[in-house]
């Protein structure tokens, strides 16, 4: 048996013994997803136990170094863990912006002290993070952000407003883009971390077309932040922001896969109408082909062969696919899928999910922004 084969065997055995049966059930609603954080109420003992045993092994972040609370797994081992979890239908023990966005940015740009302080907390799910990027006047033109951050000698003073802050009302801390200089647009931005309980921070949820409020407006009124909570250099925050956006886009693009690369939409929906069946088959071809690109891109990324604009290509293709997927789910569901509040529709899950996907090609940079990035950085078209 090769080392990887024995790793697989051990992993399978360990998961069998440690993944509670309830955590092998499909995720039915938002409440089934464990986000962690100071104010997190575990939905069940099983959810708590699953997070604890996985965090103890570093498997909430399997490929981070062990020193920072990770599992220290190689890419091949991490893939095996993912496959073995998928095999038994195990839920992710922890979902967080700390894992998918801030963590990778800290690993690349954080000081040793910052890494040792923040990363293990993220790995254990102790801090829930919000992302403070967009502002009312800075959406697609993100670098036009105006939130002011002044150097007051022994602290920073932050004033301004963010919008589309995901789960800001539930988050413990925020990673935030602020303006530390007005002399240069891109060269006057810094990347700041601070506690949402700091005096002067307030949030207001935004009601979306789905009837849910996953996003907030966030206001900063004379918020004092300690000096050592800047990631990367002052005025060089745009580099950190772009790097993190790459990870965010990769995460969002993965949603095009829906239930994972192995299951086709047609197999789940079993369409009997021939025209719908044909549309779904066309979708499944595109979705499976896209999953092959995701797989290839991940391998290229690990090998350092990926073009830096590849996440934009993935984000564009993946989000457009996910919107198409939900259009087809709605078509297959017919009038049943339109119910908004009944128990039999799980409080309108199909319709609300469908509406939620419309944001996929807006958040994290619109489809048009992604196409512009591909045109400029990959195709090198003039004036892009």
């Amino acid at each position: 048996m090769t080392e990887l084969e024995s790793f697989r065997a051990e992993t399978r055995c360990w998961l069998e013994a440690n993944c509670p049966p309830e955590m092998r059930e499909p995720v039915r609603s938002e409440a089934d997803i464990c986000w962690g954080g100071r104010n997190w109420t575990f939905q069940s003992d099983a959810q708590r136990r699953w997070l604890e045993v996985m965090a103890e092994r570093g498997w909430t972040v399997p490929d981070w170094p062990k020193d920072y609370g990770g599992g220290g797994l190689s890419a091949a081992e991490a893939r095996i863990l993912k496959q073995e979890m998928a095999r038994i239908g195990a839920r992710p023990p922890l979902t967080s912006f700390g894992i998918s966005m801030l963590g990778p940015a800290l690993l690349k740009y954080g000081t040793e002290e910052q890494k040792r302080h923040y990363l293990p907390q993220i790995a254990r799910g102790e801090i829930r993070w919000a992302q403070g990027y967009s502002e009312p006047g800075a959406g697609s033109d993100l670098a036009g952000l105006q939130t002011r951050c002044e150097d007051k000698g022994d602290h920073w003073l932050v004033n301004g407003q963010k919008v589309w802050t995901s789960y800001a009302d539930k988050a413990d801390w925020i990673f935030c883009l602020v303006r530390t200089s007005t002399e240069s647009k891109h060269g006057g931005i810094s990347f700041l971390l601070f506690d949402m309980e700091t005096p002067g921070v307030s949030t207001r949820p935004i009601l979306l077309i789905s009837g849910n409020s996953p996003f907030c407006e966030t206001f900063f009124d004379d918020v004092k932040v300690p000096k050592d909570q800047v990631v990367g250099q002052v005025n060089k925050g745009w580099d950190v922001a772009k790097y993190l956006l790459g990870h965010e886009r990769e995460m969002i693009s993965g949603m095009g896969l829906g239930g994972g690369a192995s299951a086709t939409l047609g197999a789940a929906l079993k369409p009997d109408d021939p025209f719908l069946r044909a549309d779904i088959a066309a979708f499944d071809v595109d979705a499976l082909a896209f999953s092959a690109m995701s797989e290839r891109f991940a391998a290229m990324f690990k090998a350092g062969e990926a073009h830096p604009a590849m996440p934009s290509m993935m984000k564009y293709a993946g989000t457009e696919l996910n919107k198409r997927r939900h259009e087809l789910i709605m078509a297959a569901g017919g009038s049943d899928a339109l119910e908004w509040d009944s128990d039999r529709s799980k409080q309108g899950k199909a319709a609300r999910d469908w509406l939620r996907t419309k944001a996929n090609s807006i958040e994290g940079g619109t489809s048009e922004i992604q196409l512009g990035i591909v045109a400029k950085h990959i195709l090198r078209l003039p004036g892009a």
Partner: protein
Amino acid sequence: MTLLTDDQKMLQETAASFLRDEGGPAKQLRYWRDTGCTDGYGTDFWKRFGELGLNGICIPESHGGLGLGATEAALVLEEIGRNLTPSPFLTTAVAGVRAIDGTAHADRWFPQILSGDAVLALAVDEGKSHRPEATAMAATRQGNGFLLNGDKRFVVHGNSADMILVAARTGGSAGESDGITLFAIEKGASGLSVDTATVADGSKASRLRFDNVAVDSDAVVGDVDGGWAPLSRALGAGRAGAAAELVGVAAAASDMTVDYLKQRKQFGKLIGEFQALQHRAAHLDGEIEIARAAALKAAQALDSGDERAELWVSVAKAKAVASAALAVQEGVQMHGGIGMTDEHDIGLYMKREAVLSELFGDERYHRARVAALSGY
């Protein structure tokens, strides 16, 4: 999915430089088309493939080949697609070789394929579209052998082939995969008539009529009534190969178009500065990357014996057709008037795309196959 190994990258570079220098439209496609060549490709040039060892990619080392697989074949085919190089590589060295590998026919044909002296063709389609399971052509037992009667269409390189692999029915009925037998029919067989047409891209495809063509039982490839197995191997390799070639066609058409956007001026600007064209070009680039990944995934699945290889092959073919069709259509449109002229190469890409799309099953055939293989 694994990335290319150093050996694979070396093979890719060898094929790329050979085909770029010798296989481009001016030296090959246009030359043979405009001189009225009956084969549609250069026979000496086909021998060069042999000299370079490319014909042995899918032939086992025990037979003097390289013992490689669909992945390496795909690397060569992508370069063939880029250069629109006319050659019987796909039908002979990829699909044909996979059909007879492990059978008694390997000893007879592998040496001549390796040297570039033999050409193989596949005779599967009977209607206007590719439907291998609908094979109806009859092979009836006669003494120790069989009598073949019926018609085949779209036999690419049928007029140049030294041996044609013919799917005929010895049992079962049209629509069933059981009961099909694969025969190796040699050039000039008595009762076989060949009606050849030049197709849109300048290559040759034949209609075959079998009128009491008598063959020995030696002509059977694999087992009687069990021809679906070697046929599936050939079609799997052929489809994955055609997908890779289509990716090459798409990539070259797109590169040519993006270059044009950086040269052509209208309204006092390079037309590549217009966002309406930038976004279309960027969308196309993504679609080609997706098709390339799907083609690689399919080839690797065939090589590793993945149980989902058939699914990935159909995903790859369907996606490659779609991406290449988009590439050539956008290519002609963005070139404007010059794109409609025979003088410009972009139109040649459109024609090759059309032929490769039809070969071994079009986009709709493979979508339907993805649905069937997924259980819906």
